[in-house]
């Protein structure tokens, strides 16, 4: 009798554990795609709103599906064309097939789509890990630098790292606003996700600020050189310095894609020191400014004199 009840308890226990193990996760939004993609996917305002709705669905455990939102998805597909049409790519005549493959010159749809592969196909030129090579067909300098980066090595080895389109949103191909670095890069570079140094977004932002400062310094130096030249100073050497700095400034944008902030900063600093040399050559010694004399305190002498006078009277009277 005793043995049987023990067995029963054991069976009930096992069933309960089984239920617990196979119980679906209560909070579906936990560790879902949305965790990363709410800030990583390309967004126009419309898409942002769409994504917000998606997050709300997931929080209520409702999966969003193509069956429910077919018209919506269709609309977004048109948005891609709209975004491209307003981009620099459209302006320069870089059309869909340049990245997606296919042959628009063919007469029939079947023939035109012969080389076309879906974006989820690892052979597709716009598959996540193939994107750098595709962009590099035209942007070779950027690709060369990107291939030297830790991002690229991680992309090759782990298939998990930012690619070109992470920052340059596909179809619009705008440059990521530095104000969004902490939000976007912070998806990995944060103290809570121990995958990358947390201070990188801030450092990167500071670095771009330094680039602006360099531009500003070059402008100032060129102004000063212009006036020095008018005054008859020899500015050949100073002009050489600023030309070098300008050349470095032009190389900074491709070099950014190396994602090596130490190297980047060194290059900026060397350009800045060249500008400083140029300024030293054309600038005359600063005129020392006169310091104003401290104003006197009126009334103070009067008060002390009077008090001492009264004290003398007081002593005389007492005697």
């Amino acid at each position, binding site marked *: 009798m005793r043995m049987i009840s023990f067995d029963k308890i054991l069976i009930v226990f096992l069933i309960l554990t089984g239920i617990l193990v196979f119980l679906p996760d209560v909070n579906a939004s936990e560790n879902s795609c949305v965790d990363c993609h709410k800030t990583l996917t390309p967004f126009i305002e419309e898409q942002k709103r769409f994504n917000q709705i998606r997050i709300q669905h997931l929080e209520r455990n409702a999966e969003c599906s193509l069956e429910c939102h077919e018209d919506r998805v269709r609309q977004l597909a048109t948005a891609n064309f709209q975004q491209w049409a307003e981009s620099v790519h459209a302006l320069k005549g870089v059309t869909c097939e340049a990245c997606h493959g296919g042959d628009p010159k063919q007469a029939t749809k079947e023939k035109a789509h012969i080389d076309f592969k879906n974006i989820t196909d690892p052979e597709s030129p716009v598959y996540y890990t193939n994107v750098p090579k595709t962009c590099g067909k035209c942007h070779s300098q950027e690709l060369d630098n990107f291939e030297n980066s830790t991002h690229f090595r991680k992309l090759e080895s782990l298939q998990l790292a930012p690619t070109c389109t992470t920052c340059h949103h596909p179809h619009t191909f705008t440059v990521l*606003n530095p*104000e*969004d*670095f*902490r*939000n976007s890069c*912070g998806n990995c570079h*944060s*103290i809570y996700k121990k995958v990358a140094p*947390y*201070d990188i*977004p*801030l450092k990167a932002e500071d670095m771009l600020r330094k680039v602006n400062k360099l531009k*500003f310094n070059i402008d*100032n130096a060129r102004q000063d050189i212009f006036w020095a030249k008018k005054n008859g100073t020899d500015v050949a050497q100073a002009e050489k310095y600023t030309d070098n700095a300008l050349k470095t400034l032009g190389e900074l944008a491709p070099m950014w894609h190396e994602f090596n902030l130490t190297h980047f900063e060194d290059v900026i600093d060397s350009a800045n020191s060249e500008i400083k040399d140029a300024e030293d050559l054309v600038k005359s010694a600063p005129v020392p400014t006169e310091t104003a004399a401290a104003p006197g305190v*009126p*009334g103070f002498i*009067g*008060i002390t004199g*009077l008090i001492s006078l*009264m004290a003398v009277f007081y002593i005389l009277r007492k005697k």
Partner: protein
Amino acid sequence: MQPHLKRAFTILALIIIAFIFVRSLVVPESFGQYGWYRGDSVKEIRNLTVNYRGSASCGEENCHENIYTVWAKDRHKTVNCETCHGPAQKHVLDAREPLMPANDSRDYCGKCHFKRISRPEAFPQIDPGAHGEDLRCVYCHNPHKPWFD
């Protein structure tokens, strides 16, 4: 009159005379020109140097347009540029005059954002011991565009 009263009145008279004398020396001429204060002080205060310029001038003239538009649209739009970046008048008059580095210390952000029982509950506040591992807030939060998860 009794002698002790005489003495007292003499002392009182002396004190009054001394007061009038001292007052005539100490009170500046322009006192009472406009009201119960020194009239010249108006001129002096008017001549004080102005150190602050106001946020609008940062976004003007194509200088910090990008960051200005980001800031002006976001939740920190009520906190002015110079609150963190310091007085900017000199820098606005001569762009080559650099600004002081912005105050981005943890305690400075904490002036508004550390948890206080007296603050409205909806206002974003953190418990400094439990959040952020004692690092500067700006490592994760962009002060021009604060976002909350």
